């Protein structure tokens, strides 16, 4: 018997429709638990409308890796065994839609809750000019800097305080940051200078801040910006060669990076705003264990990643989570309505506060609990610098190529020029038509 929706007759001729909602991320269970409240509110509306249907939500939190989730989704879809709603990173929308796995949610953007959605965020769930999902939250991936290390380097409190603004304005460049990082290493103020997260959504940030274009959204094709790539590769190659960056940064675990930062052992770290929650809950400080938001903000600052040249607009990358609906769901209408309910500001806020994510509508961001949350307040502005990588079906391949090329640079196996031409070859081979 295939899973999916099951309907049963309740008392009084009421038909109870079970909707399965699944997330793979056990660390943010609000992504499915929010549906309970959403279902209540939907049922109220249904009752008011005199509908005989009632919704019951079955939550599935199946902790698995991203890739396992992909397999699960593909094979379950192909064999008709899917849940009704999945929470997932937005970037899968491309290939899911392309593979004809999803239900298009035409017109959902007209719903009132989404009126004040952050500008540009519908793009995250669009593919082929249709909407395939609903945003669930957003975040940003800035640079964390360690105030204590800066102080050791002789920085004053004022200098430190003004740093984020300088980065935002494009006054503080990548080169300066690298210089500072090297100084920290040379003067033994910290074990490391700069750490970059190597995840698929993180690595491109350094490229984007070199002004590198990777994708032509208009044409829906990847591009090879040789100049930008060469610059970035040169930067990276120099950084690892003079010890500013660990040569092994591509293979260092995120937790170790976070530990280094909270223990004042690295000056700059590119990470996600939600990582603050880990300092609060995972006992990463060697002496203090769990620390408070206040402690974090006292010792660690956050800024956008500086740009390569003065005056450029800095960029961070966001990986908003979205809800998608498999094509084979039996109750498209109820599911759609449920998605509207779950996007209420209150529920957005609940999720945001619990997991250090940022709500995606103005109402959400201005919800009381969010406003009162110091951390979200502190980093909230970053979302205006956020871009997302394309959700093209071939994005995983592109990310892999970019990472492999970077690996070659970091290893010293290739010069920046060689790496660029290697990328060209690979992109031709792997991306085929999707490469311009």
């Amino acid at each position, binding site marked *: 018997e295939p899973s999916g929706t099951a309907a049963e007759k309740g008392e009084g001729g009421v038909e109870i429709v079970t909707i399965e909602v699944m997330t793979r991320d*056990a660390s943010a269970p609000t992504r499915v638990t929010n549906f309970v409240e959403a279902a209540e509110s939907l049922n109220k509306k249904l009752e008011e409308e005199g509908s005989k249907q009632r919704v019951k939500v079955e939550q599935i939190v199946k*902790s698995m890796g991203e890739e396992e989730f992909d397999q*699960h989704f593909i*094979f*379950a879809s*192909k064999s008709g065994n899917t849940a009704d709603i999945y929470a997932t990173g937005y970037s899968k929308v491309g290939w899911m839609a392309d593979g004809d796995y999803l239900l298009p949610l035409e017109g959902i953007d007209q719903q009132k809750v989404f009126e004040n959605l952050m500008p540009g965020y519908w793009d995250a769930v669009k593919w082929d000019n249709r909407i395939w999902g609903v945003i669930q939250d957003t975040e940003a991936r800035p640079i964390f800097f360690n105030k204590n290390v800066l102080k050791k380097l002789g920085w004053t409190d004022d200098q430190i305080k003004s740093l984020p603004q300088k980065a935002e304005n494009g006054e503080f460049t990548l080169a300066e940051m690298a210089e500072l990082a090297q100084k920290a290493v040379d003067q033994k103020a910290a074990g490391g200078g700069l750490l970059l997260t190597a995840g698929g959504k993180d690595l491109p940030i350094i490229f984007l801040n070199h002004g590198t274009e990777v994708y032509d959204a208009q044409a829906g094709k990847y591009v090879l910006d040789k100049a930008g790539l060469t610059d970035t590769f040169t930067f990276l190659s120099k950084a690892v060669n003079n010890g500013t960056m660990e040569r092994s940064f591509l293979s260092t675990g995120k937790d170790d990076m976070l530990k280094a930062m909270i223990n004042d052992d690295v000056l700059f770290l590119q990470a996600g705003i939600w990582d603050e929650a880990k300092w609060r809950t995972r006992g990463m400080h060697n002496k203090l264990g769990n620390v408070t938001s206040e402690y974090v903000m006292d010792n660690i600052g956050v800024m956008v990643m500086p740009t390569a040249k003065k005056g450029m607009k800095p960029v961070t990358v966001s990986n908003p989570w979205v809800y998608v609906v498999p094509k084979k769901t039996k109750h498209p209408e109820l599911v759609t309505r449920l998605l509207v309910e779950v996007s209420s500001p209150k529920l957005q806020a609940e999720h945001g506060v619990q997991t250090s994510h940022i709500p995606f509508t103005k109402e959400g961001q201005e919800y009381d609990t969010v406003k009162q949350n110091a951390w979200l307040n502190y980093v909230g502005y970053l979302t205006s610098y956020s871009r997302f990588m394309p959700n093209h079906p071939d994005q995983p391949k592109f990310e892999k190529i970019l990472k492999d090329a970077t690996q070659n640079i970091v290893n010293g196996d290739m010069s920046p020029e060689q790496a660029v031409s290697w990328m060209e070859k690979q992109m031709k081979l792997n991306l085929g038509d999707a490469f311009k």
Partner: protein
Amino acid sequence: MEMKMMQAEMGQRDENRRKADHGSWINRRRKWLQSMPNVFSIALMAAGSLPLMAIYVWMVLVSFSDSGLIPKNLTLENWSFLWSELNIDGYIYPSVWTIFLNTLFIATGTSIFEVLFALLAGYVISQTRFPGRTILLQSTLLTHAFPAITGLIAAFYILNTVGLLNTLTGIMILKVLGGIPMSTWIIKGFFDEVPRELTWASQADGCGRLKTFMTVFLPHIWPGVAAISLFAFLSGWGEYVMISVFLFDDSISTLSVVIKSLYNETSSASYGQVMALATFYMLPCVVLYFFSQKALMRMKL
């Protein structure tokens, strides 16, 4: 009488000439040297086995303790999933007994069918000559060597076509098919060892083929059957990849998948809980193993 004297005298002379007696240092040293390999081996094995033992003991201890990876206070709390629900991160898993039965179904099913088919094939390959026999044996190796990974995609298509995707039966069939070559090979070795005279005798005594099989072969190949049953059971019991790829519903998931999901980075299940589940998961294997370990030691090729 004279002879007697002479004999005794000779004995005396012998005694005088003899150099070292039982207790002399040279004989003590020789004795010690001879026991060296024995002592050394025992020491080596003990040194090697203790950590291994310790790991499993540790696993059990942690499952009964409430204090992380270093077992301290004993408690049964971690085992509560046996009588109440398995609740992690607020998510309630299906009853552990359902999952247990699912796992058991795959394991016993695999074991039964794999042994059955391997027996049939091993019998024919060992006891009869037919053209292509050698090729068949060689092909066994080839199948064994074929990269199983990509077979998964093919397996997906096949399972989907016959409608066995997302079923325990489907997984069981895949396990059986994958295990047949090795099992056949092992059981063939046991068939080879059955004295031919015995099979002849049973024929002369009036047995047909089936009766010969039951009375002559089965008692001989019993250890082999036990060994491959155990192996098949273990492989079914421990399967993870196929289950994680081909089963979608929680209600038919197995212990391996549940445990794997519990120790993912993002999960906050306690060590004790996971260890308890892991111990619970291992228990049937260990029980079976104690029953069949004699058979295992007699395994030949």
